[in-house]
Each structure stands twice: as C-alpha cells, then as structure tokens.
C-alpha cells in the first residue's frame, strides 16, 4: 500500500538537493509545457479556421480536387503523432539518461 506520509529517505533528500536534479526537472517541465502549449494552440487554430473561414479551407491546392482542409486535416493527424514522438524520444533518451546517471552516482 502506498504510504503518503512516510519519511523521505536520505537518498531522496540527497537527490532533491542536487542541482543536476533540479535542472533536469526544470528542463523536462519546460519542454512538456512548451509542447502542451503548441498542441493546444495548433488545435484551437484549426477549429477556429473551420469555424470562421470555411471558404479558405475548401480552396483547392494546385488547381486539383485536393483541398486545403484535407491537407491540414492530414497534417493534424501526422503532427499529433509526430509531437508525441518528439517528446518520447527526448524523455526516454536524454532525460532518462541524465536521471539514470544521477541516481547511479548518488546511490553509490
């Protein structure tokens, strides 16, 4: 069972006080909030474009049948996957490596 109030171990105190840990948390948090903001802004813009300028969305691209709306819609699907990939790559790579190195050193 999870005990919410048990005292932090000495190791946990050492980690919390380490400037590299503080920097890691700050970097990761800044990165995740930036990506969150991008997601929310891009999605809101997409919905607003549909709500306010339907003729623009229906315009054809390069004189063919394919419209701006279809291309932007496809870009939304691909972009959503891509932004997840960007985060996972960095979090599972750089951030996890920094954390693992720090934990290994402080536990030794």
């Amino acid at each position, binding site marked *: 069972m999870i005990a919410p109030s048990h005292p932090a171990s000495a190791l946990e105190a050492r980690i919390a006080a380490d400037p590299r840990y503080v920097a890691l948390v700050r970097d990761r948090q800044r990165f995740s909030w930036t990506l969150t903001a991008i997601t929310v802004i891009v999605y809101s813009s997409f919905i607003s474009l549909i709500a306010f300028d339907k003729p623009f969305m229906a315009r054809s691209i390069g004189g063919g049948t394919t419209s701006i709306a279809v291309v932007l819609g496809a870009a939304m699907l691909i972009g*959503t996957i891509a932004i997840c990939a960007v*985060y996972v790559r960095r979090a599972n790579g750089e951030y996890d490596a920094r954390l693992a190195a720090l934990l290994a050193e402080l536990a030794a």
Partner: protein
Amino acid sequence: MIRRLMLTTGLTALLGWTTGASAEITGAITQQPTNWTAIAMFGGFVAITLWITGMAARRTRTVSDFYTGGGITGFQNGLAMAGDYCSAASFLGITSQIFNDGYDGLIYAIGFLVGWPIVLFLIAEKLRNLGRFTFADVASYRFLQGPVRSFSAVSTLLVVAFYLIAQMVGAGQLIQLLFGLPYLYAIVAVGGLMMVYVLFGGMRATSWVQIIKAVMLLCGATFLVLGVMAHVGFSFEALFARAVAVKTRVALESGLPPGEAAAKGRAIMGPGGFIKDPISALSFGFALMLGTAGLPHILMRFFTVPDAREARKSILWATVWIGYFYALTFILGFGAIVMISFNPEYVDAAGALRGGNNMAVMHLAHATGGNLFLGFISAVAFATILAVVAGLTLSAASAISHDIYASVIHKGAADPVKELRVSRITTILLGIAAILLGIVFQKQNVAFMVSLAFALAASGNFPVLVMSLLWKGCTTKGAAWGGAIGLLSAFVLTVLSPVIWVAVFHFDQAVFPYSSPALFSVPAAFLAIWAISVTDRSPRSAIDKAGYPEQRLRSETGIGVHSPAAH
C-alpha cells in the same frame, strides 16, 4: 419507425456526436436477414478470447494480477489502448458521415486524437511513477484517503455509467443491423461476455481482448483501404476527384441545375455544417481533448506497464494506431462515395443506403471482399464493443474494490483475498447492471451520453490529477470539493444544454446555449480547487502541503514505483 429512431440515437450516442445538427445520423433502417457468416466469424473471436481468458484465469491469483495483468510492454499496451479507444461507432459512424457529407467526419476524428499528447506531456510519467492500480492512487497520494478516493470513485462510476449505457444501447442496435438478431440477445451477449472476461481473466484477459480487437480492426480497415486505393489507381487526387464527380452526379440527378450541382459535389472537400458556432466547437473539442486525459479506464492502462519509460512508449504507440485508424476511416468514407453510390445492390433509387445510413463501410466491405469479408467486418464491429465495455467494467470494479473497499473502508489494510473477492462480486453486479441499463435505455434518447462522459472526465478527474501532481498548495479539501464542483457543473450545464434540455426534455429553448460544457466547467474546477485550497486552514492542509516534495521527487524519478510484475 421506432427502430429507426433507436438506431439513430444509438449511433449518435456511441459517437457523442452532438455539435452540429447536420452531424446527426438519420435514415431508415431495416433489420437485416440473419447473417450466419458474421455470427460464425464472431463465434471464432469469442472462442479465442475465452481460451485466452481461461489461460489468464490460471495466472490471476492476486489483486495485482487482477488490476494490472502482471505486466505487458509499452507496444502491447499502446495497441490495447487503441483497442480500448477506437469504437465501433467511429468505424461505422465516421465513414458514413463522410459518405454523406464529406470532410466533416475528419474534424471529429482529430478531436479524439489530440487528447493523447496532453496525456503524454502532463500526466503519463507521473501517473505511472506514483500509482499502482487506479488513478485515485495518484490523485490521493499525499491527501487524506477518504475524501479524495471517494470523489475519484464516484467520478469513475459516473463516467463509466454514461459511457457504458451508450455502448450497450449501441451494441443492441448494431447487432440487429449486422447479425440480424434481436436487441435483447446482443445486450445479454455483450453483458455476459464482458463479465466472463473481467471476472476470470481480470486485466490480463481484458488487455488481450483489446489487443486482438485492435489488430483485427486495423487489419480489416487496411485491407478495405487497399481495395479502395487499387480501385482508383493508388492516387488520392483521383479518389477525391471521382468522389466529387459522383456527388455532383447525385446532385444533378436530384434535379439541381448544373452550377449548383457542381458546387454541391465540390462541397465534400471542405468543412460543412458540423461546426457552426465556434464556442460550442471549441468547448466540444476541449471536452474530447481533456476528457481523454481523465477517462478512468484509459488511465488504468498505465499501471499495466513497468515504468514511466514504457508508459510513454504506450502513448506513442496508441497515438500511432489511433491516428492511423482515423486516417483509414477518412479514406474509407471517400471510397464508399466512389464505389457504392450508384450500385443498386447497396443504394436504393432515392440514393439512400440500403439497411440504414450507417452501412456505408459494410457495403464497401461487401463490394471489396464479398460476403466473407462483410462477415469479418461485422464481427470486428461487435468485438470492438466488447473490448470497450470490458475495459470500462474493470475500471469501475477497481474503483469499488481498491478505492472504496480496500482504501477507504479498510484504510489500506484489507485482506487481499477479500479485496479480490469484492472486485469479482462487483464485476458480476456491474455486468447485471449493464444488461438492465441496456434494456431500460433501449428506447431512450442517449445521444448525449458519451460526450457527457468525456465532459465529466475533463471537468472532474483531469483538474484533480493535474493540480495534485503539479501544485504543492493543493489540499485534500481543494481536490475533493473542487473536483466535485467540476463534475457537478459539467453535469448541470449538460442538462441545461440543447443536447438534453431540448432533445430529451423537449423544451423550446436551451438555458445553456452551447453543446458542451467543458470550456466553462474545466476552468470552474481549476478555480474551485485553487480557491478552496488557499482558504483551507485545517490542520490536514499543512500535512497535504508538506507531502508535496516527496510526492514530486517520486513522480519525477520513479523511486518506489510499483511494478505490475513485482511479486
């Protein structure tokens, strides 16, 4: 006529499709002749999943086995999340929506996908690092267990109830359409099978039912798309051009002058009537987006993987498969326009789809792969509902047995054998309740229920999780009461909105004019949590705040993480 209404409401319910009037799925439906191919195919799926349940049952001995399934990889969990999330209604409803109106179906699909990055960026790794079985483990981590877990359990049960009713009613109606069997058979079959999966196989069986279903759905849809693309020479431009030509011809034949007919044909390439009022559109979009991050059955899936690293991978894979699935449905909708619009076998003289307006992808399956493939796709659609309701049932059972019974009543010191028994008894009760609710709501308008479930999850669970994870000033009172205010405002605003006030209660004018409450109820919840926390002077509030540094450290580092396989 009654059946027609039922089907209409059932599919709109599954879709939660309430933003624009044009998105309403309507049309006559005829119960199909009994489709033995589909039933045999579905029988095969049931046989395989029951065999897996049998295997899983032998390995489901502890509460951890029951709630987490003993651990799977991020890739497997991503597939299972996709299986949990892609409903039969997206498959049938979005393709048919595109068949009828073109582009608009894609707007809805995108709304469903954009919640996943939010889950990934804000809560996934912290959730995995702190929790064990349910999201309430995380929401209540540093707080007094009773109030916060009670809130979480109530919220879970509400979200699951509305989601489940919509799925049950939709299942009953789909079965008339796809298998040619009565409503009641479907309700009992769905309720009974989900009970068996969860009761005996717990999370292990549920995960595999969802994984198998996801693979079947993705493979079936991919095969259909290949059929469509082969038909148009593997060119999207050709697909769109032919679809516009077909829609123009349909308009011409309905008696429109050539100029208007051309404009009408062309209209399928751009947004139509789905989004009329921007506030409703944004509100609905945010309900889908933030609701995804608060759905208890989705959040529970994070505890099936060993660590934050695999949790992140789960979401990436889930996003890949769900995004791929929605891209496929878009192509299938246009493919249906091209391939079945003028075939008298699929469309009657008036231009309506035979068997009901949601049959576009079914006819397309028949046009592409004959009776056998039609049977396969029908079986996939039913398997899809089963996978979704199994996940819902498991999360509701966990809320009762883990959050209420073990954590609140027994203060975390419950006998594990008894806890497991409670979760199984709850599963049986939930199965019976689901069947009864499916029967009670058969003829009711349940169109608002899925969007209500998303709005509740976005306004209750999501703010509580975010504030407890990220704000050190959050207190027990703030989380429990603020979350309750979010839930209540989402519920009340939905009742006062057109989807219930006008569509269900038949008042002329809605009190709350927008179709989704999220744009108002989510900020209300955050504000309430903040205001109640900062004014909280109780002795407990000091303990809540003092617990933050340790919670934060553990959520960031994964120290003390409970691995599903660690026993």
